[in-house]
């Protein structure tokens, strides 16, 4: 077992949206080292095949499970983190969300005004602009249904330059059109002299008094297992940036036994819980090809009645992932899969964290050195999920669907909206029956001005340590209500500029 000490001014743990962007900016002024648990895969490796993409590019092979096993989470893992595999939808943080954070959590550094220059620069550098191509049929059909019903919708801004419209963003972009931190920020950081250690997982932060003194990392295989002859790296630096993302960042804080006097670490972890409605059309939809997401609707995102708001989008539909969600065996599952090319998929992302009945999940210890996310299940949430499923079915029938299948273990493809309505009125809301998934993990190390209710301050600094900062999606005090990439990039940009001013 070999051991090596690596010294730097700043060590950045995690290379997704938060860590990658911070590395790019900090490396202009400081000696920076990036540590990433996932493998360094690039466009040559991206073969648009689920069988190879999920194990190497996603946490737990594309199905990170909540503790109860009920919710499957898509979360990136390789160099570039989730920016390597996301579906490219990039939105500014909603004003309502920022105002809510300010009022309820004392977040005063992340405001619409302070973020404006960062949103602009990020959009410019990452090529973020409303998709100017034709939507694929999957998105177009959904837009048709929305238009007929008078549901407000718009074109999704995507972080791409020269996109070939292939439709395989979720398996890594084979043409480098997607502006992930993998192709955008990290190469710039390396040009500036930063070093990247991939396939090293930081297992523990060692601390004395109010300072992190060392990050201890072991080498892992591309699939995340410890190597037989594992190498050890001991990172020493003046400052440590933790950018592991939701779930992972709180886990490292917990494993390191960092002080948590008010028991906030890991609390309020949000998922944008997603419900799925699969419609079958007479014509082929081929939802596996073309820009996966180009149309969205925020019509139901901020309901006046305080129910769970949701954003509507369309997912790409690929065989293995789809089959893993159908949750049935034998003919029932096979009959569904035979209609695969005719599926139109619509998803609703629940805006969790804004209601007393929606306080998010908790990262908990489930065994020796083992942690997981315990996410709640209650009437408030399931009422919201059912409402979203009915709304999506309405849109799909309006667009001309022959049948609609709300993803639920006991649902069938229904020919009429009233059949869907009847089913939803009486169906079980058991967590193993009503299918909920997630692709956005947020929170767990919330930002706030009150130490008693948060984990980091308005600088992103961990309250109890003078040299530990968290610049990733785990600092959100609630979910966002939009896909998080642009928010994480922009928050990281703002917080990194604040940090540079402070320590330069």
């Amino acid at each position, binding site marked *: 077992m070999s051991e090596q000490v690596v010294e730097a001014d700043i060590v950045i743990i995690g290379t997704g949206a938060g860590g990658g962007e911070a590395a790019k900016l900090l490396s202009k002024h400081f000696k920076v080292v990036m540590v990433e648990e996932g493998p360094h895969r690039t466009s040559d490796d991206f073969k648009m095949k689920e*069988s190879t993409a999920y194990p190497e590019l996603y946490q737990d092979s594309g199905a990170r499970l909540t503790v109860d*096993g009920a919710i499957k989470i898509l979360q990136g893992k390789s160099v570039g983190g989730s920016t390597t595999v996301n579906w490219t939808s990039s939105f500014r943080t909603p004003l309502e969300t920022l105002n809510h954070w300010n009022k309820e959590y004392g977040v005063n550094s992340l405001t619409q005004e302070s973020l404006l220059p960062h949103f602009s620069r990020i959009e410019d550098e990452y090529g973020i602009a409303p998709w100017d191509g034709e939507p694929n049929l999957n998105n177009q059909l959904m837009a048709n249904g929305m238009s007929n019903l008078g549901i407000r919708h718009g074109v999704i801004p995507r972080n791409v330059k020269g996109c*070939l419209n*292939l439709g395989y963003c979720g398996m890594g972009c084979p043409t480098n059109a997607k502006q992930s931190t993998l192709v955008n920020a990290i190469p710039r950081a390396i040009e500036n002299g930063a070093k990247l250690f991939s396939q090293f997982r930081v297992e523990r932060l060692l601390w004395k008094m109010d300072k992190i003194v060392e990050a201890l990392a072991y080498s892992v295989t591309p699939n995340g297992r410890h190597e037989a002859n594992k190498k050890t790296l001991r990172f020493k630096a003046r400052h440590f940036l933790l950018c592991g993302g939701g779930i992972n960042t709180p886990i490292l804080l917990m494993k390191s036994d960092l002080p948590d006097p008010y028991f906030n670490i890991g609390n309020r972890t949000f998922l944008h819980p997603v419900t799925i409605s699969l419609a079958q059309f007479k014509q082929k939809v081929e939802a596996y090809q073309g820009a996966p997401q180009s149309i969205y609707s925020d019509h139901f995102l901020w309901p006046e009645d305080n129910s769970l708001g949701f954003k509507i989008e369309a997912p790409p539909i690929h*065989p293995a992932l789809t*089959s893993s969600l159908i949750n049935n*065996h034998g*003919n029932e599952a096979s009959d569904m899969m035979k209609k695969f090319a005719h599926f139109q998929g619509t998803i609703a992302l629940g805006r969790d964290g804004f209601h007393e009945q929606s306080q998010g999940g908790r990262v908990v210890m489930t065994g020796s050195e083992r942690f997981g996310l315990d996410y709640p299940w209650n009437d408030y949430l399931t009422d919201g999920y059912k409402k979203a499923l009915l709304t999506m079915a309405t849109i799909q029938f309006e667009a001309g669907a022959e049948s609609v299948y709300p993803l639920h273990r006991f649902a069938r493809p229904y020919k009429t909206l009233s059949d869907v309505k009847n089913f939803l009125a009486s169906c079980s809301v058991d967590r*193993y*029956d009503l299918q909920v998934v997630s692709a956005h993990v947020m929170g767990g190390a919330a930002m706030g001005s009150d130490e008693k209710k948060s984990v980091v301050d308005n600088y992103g600094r961990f309250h109890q340590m003078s040299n530990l900062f968290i610049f990733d999606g785990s600092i959100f005090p609630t979910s966002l209500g939009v896909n998080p990439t642009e928010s994480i990039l922009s928050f990281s940009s703002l917080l990194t500029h604040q940090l540079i001013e402070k320590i330069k």
Partner: protein
Amino acid sequence: MLDRRHFLKWGVLLTFMPLPALSKEIGFIRLFADVALQGSSYNDSQFEVWNSSFQQAVSFRPIHEQEELSRLLSALDFAPSRWLLGGPWKSWSLERRSDLDLMLSSWKTSRFSLLKKGYSGLISLTQSSWYALDPSWPGIDYPGPPSKWWAT
């Protein structure tokens, strides 16, 4: 019908079940694929290719999930626990397709989360291991990823 008291006993039993290698349960896994993928273009002659995809998918799961799966398979190989889980007293064989189908259906509607969770876990691994493979694609009219980018 399994009542709560018996089920809890079974849960304890399951915890102490030995951890066999997945490859030891190959007969059952073969039957399982046959029942779970019934109606798709899968047939028994594709077992080898599906099984290597399945074994690989299992190997990518977190260690504790692999252990749970091994224990479950082990319990299904032992007559008393198999019976408690809703399976037949006699050993699994290709004639027991309908028994397995019945058992799986009973897990789906079970009052016990452990069985519902077991069902979801096993089924999603089985299905995705098949549909990740090229040979499954003609059966669902999926052409596979594009090979010529310049044509798009």
